[in-house]
């Protein structure tokens, strides 16, 4: 009697333990998401697509989709869990400005300062944001959701997370994954559109070499850039303020330690946290919806529209420029702020038509202007819809 009760006791507890394991709780959704996570990790390691982002995000997807029974403070959406605490930085838009601080400390704005007319190319590429906004509205998304989805076209992960945390917190996971995925796929999405919109003659336009920019100009840029842009769109202050602060730390030359920390250890830590938590937020139970699929489709469209906007703007702009001052339209795509990937695309596509025509430094101008432009666009959406 005693033995049988002991065995039933053990069997009860073993079966209870088994019911708590992930194997007993997996659904088809979890397995699909685990496959997605594995694909991300594969693309990062084997193909070298944005490994800094895709490895933590991919692994985060795996973490977020290990099935468990709720109520044990494990999941990212469960109050009191460690992942929930880390997710706080995403939900309240804390991580993106910190990443912008690091980006500011990494970015050299010389290309932009030396040729200021390239700044407006960065503005043209923001067409992707508002094009996707209009399409999302037409597809039945609410205005706030449409705004958050549209920002994917800015090709700026931190900005997308920041805006969606304010306008559509439920969609952060899908928007962030979409934004980072397409940023990694910039070399695949952009070149066909660039080739389609340009003629052979336009692709070999040689641009004047950039002039040297003094340290004083760079310092003034960081200060004046912040004052001018945030005075127009104060709601972009968290992102733009941190971006230009990071840049001032770098360019001032007197805060080397701070600049090194911002562009080194700090941005690495925040990137790990943001990647992990955004990945983990794709829990199948909340992520696998028709809306998420819609967001992915719209994300691809917004990138395409942004590339179209940038290239077409340069072509139109060239009509007003004298011979010798013309801009190669292959740098128009760089207006999306995937720094420096889209500038690298300009360089690669440019070299395929003229092996001696290096466009990288010219493309860096609209590329970094795109970072500012997408933050300004996020500020506008926030002030209109927030």
């Amino acid at each position, binding site marked *: 009697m005693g033995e049988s009760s002991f065995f039933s006791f053990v069997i009860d507890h073993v079966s209870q333990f088994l019911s708590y394991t992930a194997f007993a709780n997996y659904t088809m959704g979890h397995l699909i998401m685990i496959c997605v996570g594995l694909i991300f990790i594969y693309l990062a390691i084997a193909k070298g697509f944005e490994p800094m982002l895709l490895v933590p995000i991919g692994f985060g997807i795996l973490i977020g989709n290990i099935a468990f029974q709720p109520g044990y403070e494990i999941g990212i959406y469960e109050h009191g869990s460690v992942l929930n605490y880390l997710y706080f930085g995403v939900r309240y838009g804390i991580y993106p400005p910190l990443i912008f601080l690091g980006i500011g400390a990494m970015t050299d704005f010389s290309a*932009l*300062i*030396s040729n*200021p*007319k390239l*700044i*407006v190319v*960065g*503005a*043209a590429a*923001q*067409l992707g*944001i*508002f*094009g996707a*906004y*209009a*399409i*999302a*509205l*037409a597809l039945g998304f*609410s*205005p*706030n959701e*449409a*705004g958050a989805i549209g920002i994917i076209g800015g090709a700026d992960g931190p900005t997308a997370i920041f805006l969606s945390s304010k*306008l559509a917190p439920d969609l952060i996971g899908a928007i962030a994954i979409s934004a980072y995925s397409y940023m990694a796929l910039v070399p695949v999405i952009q070149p066909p559109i660039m080739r389609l919109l340009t003629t052979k003659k336009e692709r070999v336009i040689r641009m004047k070499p950039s*002039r040297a920019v*003094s340290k*004083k*100009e760079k310092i*003034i*840029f960081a200060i*004046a*850039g912040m004052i*001018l*842009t945030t005075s*127009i*769109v104060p709601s972009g202050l968290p992102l733009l303020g941190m971006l230009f602060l990071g840049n001032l730390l770098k360019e001032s030359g007197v805060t080397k330690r701070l600049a090194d920390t911002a562009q080194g250890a700090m941005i690495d830590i925040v990137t790990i946290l943001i990647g992990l938590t955004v990945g983990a937020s794709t829990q199948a139970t909340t992520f696998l919806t028709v809306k998420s699929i819609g967001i992915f489709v719209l994300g691809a469209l917004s990138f395409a529209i942004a590339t179209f906007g940038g290239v077409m703007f340069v072509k139109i702009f060239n009509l007003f420029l004298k011979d010798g001052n013309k801009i190669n339209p292959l740098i128009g795509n760089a207006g999306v702020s995937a720094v420096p990937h889209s500038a690298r695309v300009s360089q690669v596509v440019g070299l395929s038509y003229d092996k001696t025509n290096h466009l990288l430094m010219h493309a860096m101008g609209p590329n970094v*202007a795109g970072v*500012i*432009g997408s933050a*300004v*666009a996020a500020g*506008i*959406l926030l002030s*209109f*819809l*927030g």
Partner: protein
Amino acid sequence: MRLIRNKFLAVVISLIGLGVGQLYGQSALDLRINEVLVYNDSNYVDDFGVHSPWIEIFNSAYNTVDIGGLYLTDDLSQPMKYPIFKGQPITQIPPRSYIVFWADDKPTRGILHLNFTLEAGKTIALFDANGRTLVDSVTIPHSVIRDVTYGRLVDGGAEWGNLDKSTPNADNDTSVKVLAGDEFARMDPTGLGMAAIAMTVVFLALALLSVFFKYMGKVMSIDIKKQLEARAAAKARAGVQAVVGEEEASELELTGELNAAIAMTLYLYATELHDAENTVLTINRVSRTYSPWSSKIYGLRKFPN
């Protein structure tokens, strides 16, 4: 110099102090008397189950404000009539939130129970912690209705009136609110308006930067120092030419010292002149093999300081 520096520091510290004081003052000044119920027959009851008149204070700021230490009064000649307790968690009013005081003249019932009651025609006032600065006040009109609250039509707004609903600890404006996004979508269902406006703003912001840096680049390329130097050099050249001209004019006026110097130079040139050096310079590489036995550090007897 040190005196000037100290004075400068004192000014900076004073300004910071003033700023902090101002900030604190602004927080307290953000409080508003928001809604009052003068005659409470069947309206809300207090924590003792009694229908009492009440005063709602609204924190219009976007930060928490502590109302503790401020004063409520129904008599402007006695601004410190009811001191609100300090250091109580309940007196911390969160951003855009409220606190309700019961004007039942029963202060022994708790820190939210005042030592006066409300009547039509009375002026209710909130004074800052110094007892002199008036934060906000309202004179209750004689037209107040029993069980109907008299309050600001919008929280913290300027207009007062009898409210449709009593809203202690809640927004006075009870009309259905439309979200900014929904309103925008209603006015611009296709999103084209948003695209046009937003793209214009983005272009404007970046064009402003572009124009600024275009002209800044031109200004920066003007090297004022170099220009000044060039101007000075031109002036100097003009001065030298003038001097040379004068010297040419006074060519015959050679002094004895000048003649002596010229003679000495010519003599030295004539006597020291030679074409070849008689010294041979040889450069050889000298190598010294390092040996720890010859190192001085092993011979040190005294520890270095």
